[in-house]
């Protein structure tokens, strides 16, 4: 296949936009896995749940998917707090979070997926919004609004989370848990309370991430699995818990996937994330921007 400049330019731009979206999908795992050390492999399932709530709000009530996902943030936050509570009582306090905690989240992933299949079936679902169809054009470069709007929403989501983490008392407390839970305990603070809030936030991000996912592509319950590799590849490559690293890693992966699917065909793009993950784990497990 000969390399055409138009094709390359378009692939780069859509990869960049895709990367912004991947950052929004990963940011929750950057909090839960990167900061709290909770291996929430069920995270993508909650994103799909977010897609379906946006789908219901859109197709049944006619609301805008993004607005409705912002309205639903508190519900996802409470769901996250509830899940963390079960996890905390059952595993963390008993001190065997590793195997059983992983199996727990794997079970949650599976239950969510099968429940969605039972309720909605395996048909692909779409949302309808004014920005789903049209594109902006700059010379030979197309900017589909379907990718541009999620990109902007994603920037807003990550920006506000970053502001929260840097400037509020609670946000700094979360960073303190990430750095040294033992020291926090010695200061008289309760790490599990702070972790509960942080985990709530991580699941809350799924509401918005799910809504922009269903804008970008049609959704069915089992696509959660395709995102597991991507999300953890980005999270590990970004250096576990660093928001800036997450964005850069997400953009790199987005561009690589977009180039792969433009020049080799879309059926190859899932392999890109895994290749990245394996190379990162083998060569530089602390990620591109890791501290250690």
């Amino acid at each position, binding site marked *: 296949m000969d390399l055409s400049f138009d094709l390359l330019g378009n692939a780069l731009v859509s990869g960049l936009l895709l990367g912004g979206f991947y950052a929004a999908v990963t940011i929750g795992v950057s909090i839960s896995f990167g900061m709290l050390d909770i291996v929430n492999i069920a995270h993508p399932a909650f994103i799909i749940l977010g897609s379906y709530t946006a789908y219901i709000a859109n197709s049944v009530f006619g609301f805008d998917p993004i607005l409705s996902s912002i309205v639903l943030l508190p519900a996802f936050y409470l769901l996250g707090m509830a899940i963390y509570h079960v996890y905390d009582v059952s595993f963390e306090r008993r001190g065997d979070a590793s195997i059983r905690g992983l*199996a*727990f989240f794997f079970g949650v992933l599976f239950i969510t997926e099968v429940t969605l*299949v039972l309720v909605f079936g395996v048909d692909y679902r779409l949302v309808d919004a004014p920005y789903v169809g049209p594109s902006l054009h700059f010379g030979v470069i197309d900017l589909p609004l379907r990718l541009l709007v999620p990109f902007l929403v994603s920037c807003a989501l990550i920006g506000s989370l970053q502001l929260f983490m840097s400037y509020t008392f609670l946000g700094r407390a979360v960073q303190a848990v990430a750095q040294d839970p033992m020291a926090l305990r010695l200061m008289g603070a309760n790490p599990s309370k702070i972790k509960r809030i942080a985990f709530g936030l991580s699941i809350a991000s799924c509401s918005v991430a799910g809504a922009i996912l269903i804008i970008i592509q049609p959704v069915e319950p089992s696509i959660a699995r395709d995102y*597991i590799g991507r999300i953890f590849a980005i999270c*590990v490559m970004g250096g576990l818990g660093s928001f800036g690293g997450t964005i850069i890693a997400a953009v790199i992966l987005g561009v690589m996937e977009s180039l792969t699917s433009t020049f080799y065909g879309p*059926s190859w793009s899932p392999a890109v994330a895994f*290749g990245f*993950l*394996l190379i990162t784990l083998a060569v530089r*497990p602390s990620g591109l921007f890791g501290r250690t």
Partner: protein
Amino acid sequence: MRNAYFVLAALAVAVVTFAVARLIDNAYVFFAGYVVLQYVVLATAWNILGGFTGYVNFGTAAFFALGAYTTVVLHKTMPFLPLPAMMLIGGAISGLIGLGMGYLTLRLRGTFFSIATLAMAVVAQTLITNWNFVGGSRGAYIIRPSDSPIFSGDYIQYLFVVMLALSVISVSLARAIQFSRLGFGFSAIRDDEGAAEASGVPTLKLKLIATALSGGLMGMAGAPLPYYVTYLDPASGFSLSYAVNTIAMPLIGGTATWLGPVIGAILLGTLQQVATVTISSALSLLLVGVLLVTFVIAAPKGIVGWFKK
């Protein structure tokens, strides 16, 4: 010597199982029994790595499907090979893949290994989907021979016997490991890897042995699958339900011993066969998920743990 007695006892159980199945004389018994036995092998194989050494493998489906697709390739290129030879080759390939995966990721914390296995399943599926020789996303058809090659009866009875033999082999192997130096090394890694390393246990080597054994057995369990289903496509070969089942079964039965996965696989496997026939297959999968979560929260030592108080 005790191992020899155990193998004899296991063989006796296997012979009785087959005799009873022949007496009932209903093809469905063999079809359902094959699936349950396949899960006995998978759960036991998973437990060698997951239960004994404490490294969670989410990629059962990948190892299993690699074994199955090896058979598809061999069936197309060398159809004269007997099934057990195909199983050995499939097992060897899965074991080697496990070794490679393990070498890249096992030096890190356990969670990275788990995530890598999960991602590996997706990629192996991508590769197979793009490989036209084995049917790509359209899937591959395999014609099942009608008669058993070694005794009189349907070919499904032969598959049943093969899986029964593989169950005996893998359960005996798991039990032998549990009571050997190797097994003690594995549990030292599970309980405290740092301490094990410091006291001279060659942790990386042992973990690689466990991964290769576990992956190899999973591949062997997958190898007869094309003859069982006669139509194999990537979506069904790599189905997430294999991974969920093989994790749920040892955790429900109890991961510390060889017996746990066997109990878990027989109970849960039979339950699913019944639920699939009487209710629906989606609900039977939901049941597995719910049981898995309930057991890891409420009964961390599994069914075996109830009797050890």
